[in-house]
C-alpha cells in the first residue's frame, strides 16, 4: 500500500542522504520524495510516498525515521484530511496546427502552456497524482518528449473531520 509520510527535519547537511539511505537499507520502496524549506528557518519538510506491505512495516518505517537525530516529527497523513499536490512539466511534440486542440484538452485540467517552440510545447499541470496521470494519458497520442514531475507534497487541511466522516485519501497505483 502507498502511504504519504511527512517529515520535518533540521536542515543540516546529509539529512536527505540519511533519510533515503535508511529507507533503502531497510528495504522500503520510495515512490517519490520532495523537500523544501518551511515557515521556520532551519527546518525543512519532506514528503515521502512509500510503498509498504502492511501495518507492521509501516510502523517500523515511521519509528526508524523518528530515531534519526535531525528528524523532528514524522506523520503518516494518508488517512487524514489533506491537500496533496504534485506539479508536472510535460513536453509534447506539436506543430502550430495542433496547438488549439491541445489547449482545449488541457483547459479542464487548469493546466497551462509554459513554453512554446516550433516542434514542441511544454504543459504545466498541478494536482493530485491521478489528475496528472490522466492528463499525461490524454497527451500521449501527440507524442510525449519529456516528463518532469516534482513528486507529491502534502499538508493537513485546516479542519480535520471526526474519524467517522472521514474519507481517506487514496493513492492509486500509477
Amino acid at each position, binding site marked *: 500500500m502507498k502511504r504519504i509520510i511527512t517529515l520535518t*527535519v*533540521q536542515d543540516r*547537511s*546529509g539529512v536527505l*542522504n*540519511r533519510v533515503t*539511505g*535508511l529507507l533503502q*537499507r531497510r528495504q522500503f520502496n520510495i515512490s517519490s520524495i520532495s523537500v523544501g524549506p518551511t515557515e521556520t528557518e532551519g527546518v525543512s519538510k519532506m514528503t515521502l510516498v512509500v510503498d509498504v506491505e502492511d501495518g*507492521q512495516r509501516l*510502523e*517500523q518505517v515511521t*519509528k*526508524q525515521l*523518528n*530515531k*534519526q*537525530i*535531525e*528528524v*523532528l516529527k514524522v506523520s503518516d497523513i494518508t488517512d487524514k484530511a489533506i491537500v496533496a499536490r504534485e506539479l508536472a512539466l510535460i513536453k509534447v511534440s506539436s506543430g502550430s496546427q495542433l496547438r488549439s486542440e491541445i489547449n482545449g484538452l488541457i483547459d479542464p485540467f487548469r493546466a497551462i502552456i509554459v513554453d512554446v517552440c516550433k516542434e514542441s510545447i511544454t504543459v504545466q499541470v498541478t494536482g493530485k497524482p491521478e489528475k496528472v496521470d490522466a492528463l499525461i494519458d490524454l497527451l500521449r497520442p501527440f507524442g510525449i518528449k519529456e516528463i518532469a514531475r516534482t513528486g507529491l507534497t502534502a499538508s493537513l487541511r485546516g479542519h480535520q473531520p471526526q474519524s467517522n466522516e472521514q474519507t481517506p485519501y487514496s493513492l492509486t497505483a500509477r
Partner: protein
Amino acid sequence: MKVEAKLEFQTSAAPKTGADLLIDLLIKEGVETIFGYPGGAVLPIYDAIYKAQDRIGHILFRHEQGMIHAAEGYARITGQPGVVLATSGPGATNLVTGITDAMMDSLPLVVFTGQVARSVIGTDAFQEADVMAITTPITKHNYQVQSISDLPRIVKEAFHIASTGRPGPVLVDLPKDVTSGILSEPLEESELDLPGYQPTYKPNSLQIKKMAESLATAHKPVILAGAGVLHAKATQELTTFAEKHNIPVATTLLGLGAFPADSPLSLGMAGMHGTYAANMALYETDLLINFGARFDDRLTGSLKHFAPFAKVAHVDIDPAEIGKNVPTQIPIVADAKAALTELLEQTEISPTTESWLEKLKQYKQDFPLWYKHDPKGMCPQWLIEAVHKVTNGDAIVATDVGQHQMWAAQYYTFNKPHRWITSGGLGTMGFGFPAAIGAQIAAPESTVVAIVGDAGFQMTLQELSVIYERNLPVKIIIVNNGALGMVRQWQELLYENRISHSLLHSHPDFVKLAESYGIRGVRIDNQEDLVASLPELFAFEGPVLVDCRVLQQEKVFPMIAPGKGLHEMIGVKPV
C-alpha cells in the same frame, strides 16, 4: 575516577588551535584515555595531545581495528563512551568494522576522524574518504565540523547522544583546517541543540498496569533478560522482581550476567546455542516478559514458531525494537530500571508458578548442558570450566567469535553483571583480544581473560605490543582446535561433512610469537598440565598467552539449525 573538569582559555603566548580546544573539551567530558593512531590529517590534534599530555592519556594501538575494539571493551565495562581517534582515509576506513560492531551491540563510542581541509573536500585529495557517507548507516549519528565555533556544541552533543537512550557510536569528522585553525576568542560553553532527540526513560503507567494484571493471571510466565538490563544497571531490580513473583529468567548472549546464573530461577542462555530449559520455557510460556533484548534471530530461531502460546510484553528504550520482529501486546518504551522500579511498586498479586517451575526444573535435570570427557585430550568445554574455577567465576571475560565464544557463554557462568564482553550482533572475529585490552585499561585491578579462537586471534594479534608496552596483565587463552571451528561445525552438520576451507593447516608457534613480543607464552595440550599450571599462570603479574590444544572435533550443542524453532533443538543429549 573522573578527571577534574577544567576548560580554560590559555593566555600564554602560544595561540590556541581548534585541536587544543578539542582536547580541552574532551577533558571536560571526563575523558581519561584516547584510543588512537596518528596520521597526516590529525597531526594538529596529536600536537595538542602532546601539549596536554599531563592532562589526558593516549594509547597507541597497532591497527585502528584493534584500537576501536579496545574502546568497545572499555565502554562495555565502564558504561562510558570509549574515545577513538584516527586519521582520514585509511585510518577512518579501518574503523568501519568496529563502528558497525558498536552500532549492532549498542556500545557508546565517540569516534574522531581526521579529514582533509574543507577547501579540498570532494576533490579526491590525498587520503580523502567520504567518511560521512560511509558511516551514516553504521552510526547513531555523525557530524562533520564546519567551523571551530561549532566544536563545543558538537563535542557535547556527540557524548550526549552516544551515552544516553539506546547507546551507540557517534562519529565526528574533523577537517584539518578546523583543527589547525586559530581561535580568535575564547569560545563560550555550548548548549545541546537536539530538538529531535528525546529518549523516553519513564514508562507509560497504563502499560505497566496492564503488565502487572497480565502477570497476575499468567500460569507460565518467563522473563527474557537482554543487554538493556545491563545498560540500565538494573540487575538488582530484575532479581528482586523475578524473586518477588517467582518468575524464571532466561538471558540472551549479551544479557549474560543480568541475572545471577546460580539462582534457582535462572534457566541460562536461550537461543541457537541456549539451554534446553531456557528454549523450552520461551516456547511454552503464556507470558513472555522481555527486558532489554531485541529479539535477534539467533535468539528467536524461526519467528513462525517463536513463543506461539504467549502474550508478549517488551520493555525497551528504543521504540523501534518493539514489535519489529515479534508481535507485542504490551509495549513498554522505557529504561529497564525505570520500568522495573514501577513494576515493583504494583500491588498486583503474584502468579502461581509452582507447577511451571517444577516442569522447568525437570527440564534442567533431564537435559543439562553436556560434553564427553576425554581424559587423554583436553575438552574445550572443560577448559572453560577450569578457567572459571581458577578465576572464582569473577573475571572479566572477553571472547572472540566462534565455538569458543559459545562454550564460554555456556560454561563460564556469570553471577555478577558487567563481566562479559563479546561481539553478538555483528559477530566480529578479531574482537576478543583487543576488547580485553580495553577492559583491562578500564579495570586495572580486575582479572581479565581473553578467550579466543586460533583463527580469530590472528586477525588482531598485533596488539600484543600494547599489552607488553603497558604491562597490562591480560590472560590470553587460545582455544586452539586447528580450525575455523564454527564454520567446520556447520559444514559437518549442514553441508554433509564437506569441509571446505575451514581447517588451518599451518599455524605460527604461538608461544614463540608471544615471546617475540616480550610476553610469556605457554603451550598446554592435556588436562593434567592445565590443572597444574593454571593457578600460577593466573597469579602471574604480567600478561600471559596460553596456547591450549583442545580436542578438534568438538561441536557446540545444543543447536538450533537455521529455519527451525526453539523447540527443535538438536544435540540435547549425548549420542
